[in-house]
């Protein structure tokens, strides 16, 4: 226990001026995003990260220093992961009568999202480190991050992959729902939550509260299931 606490204190106490760079970049991105009427492709991360990268380039700041200097933000990812239990518990309480189809759809859907990505990575002959980094791309970022840390992928690649997956998911979902004639907003929400995690869930809440509630459920349970199953089964995919 002592080690765990000391390790985290090191993370927090390394925080220094590069944090200001992140805050400034994020503030500009958040403002632009809201100004644009929350256009998907102007997601705060899409604006903030290149801004920060070019600033770092011009002031000759290396990534290790920048990353360590943002220690407190990296540390907060832990409590943020635990915090996901709160919206999830609120939704679980009103878990509807559709328990059985919901469980089947969640289990198979989550499995399919991960498996299809891993098989495609193999098909394209991409490297093992890419495979390990993309394995958790459908899972909500804080959980995905802890999974990828555990199985030894590149966390920065995962972060981008998760963002792209979420954005692709909300762009394509509408067409898929139309083509498959899936009109029930609750089920649409579940699909958005499982395949496009937090970005999909935010979109689902724009449709209706019940769409958002199902997305929250899908995202949360898919995250838990993937985190339990993936680390144990990665050996099957690594030669």
């Amino acid at each position, binding site marked *: 226990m002592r080690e765990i606490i000391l390790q985290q204190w090191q993370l927090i106490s390394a925080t220094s001026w590069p944090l200001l760079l992140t805050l400034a970049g994020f503030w500009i991105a958040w403002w632009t995003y809201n100004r644009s009427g929350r256009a998907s492709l102007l997601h705060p991360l899409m604006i903030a990260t290149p801004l920060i990268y070019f600033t770092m380039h011009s002031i000759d700041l290396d990534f290790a220093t920048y990353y360590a200097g943002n220690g407190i933000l990296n540390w907060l990812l832990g409590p943020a992961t635990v915090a996901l239990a709160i919206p999830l518990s609120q939704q679980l309480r009103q878990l509807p009568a559709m328990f059985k189809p919901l469980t089947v*759809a969640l289990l198979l859907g989550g499995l399919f999202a991960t498996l299809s990505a891993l098989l495609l990575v193999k098909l394209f002959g991409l490297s093992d480190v890419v495979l390990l980094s993309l394995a958790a791309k459908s899972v909500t970022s804080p959980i995905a991050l802890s999974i990828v840390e555990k199985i030894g992928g590149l966390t920065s690649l995962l972060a981008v992959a998760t963002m792209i997956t979420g954005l692709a998911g909300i762009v394509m979902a509408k067409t898929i729902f139309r083509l498959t004639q899936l009109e029930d907003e609750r089920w649409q929400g579940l699909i958005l939550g*499982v395949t496009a995690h937090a970005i999909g869930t935010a979109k689902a809440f724009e449709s209706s509260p019940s769409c958002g509630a199902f997305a929250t459920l899908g995202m949360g349970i898919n995250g838990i299931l993937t985190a339990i199953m993936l680390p144990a089964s990665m050996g099957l995919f690594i030669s």
Partner: protein
Amino acid sequence: MMKLAAGLLILVLLQWLGQWGVQSLELNIPGQLLGMILLLIVLSFNKSLLPWLEATSGQLIRFIALLFVPITTGAFFLGPEIFEQLPQILIVLIISTLLAQWFMALLINRLRGRDK
């Protein structure tokens, strides 16, 4: 402000408990996730903790993108070996998301058809 701090403290304690549990039981899951599951169990038995947690969790989740700024910026520094694979990675992500959504929609249509 007190509630924000108290909420954060509860979350951090659960995270530590999760990490400690994973370490000492040699579980193959992330420690933070065990913390989340523990909190889920606590909340399903006892709702009195909820008012202390709602403000903190709400703010953390609302601004979660901020927490991901440093690690996502790291993507610009991944190096040529990864950059070369980027086009394929992009295709993998888009196709697998498309397939998963399509698969789930068909599956749900089937499951619901049978229930009717």
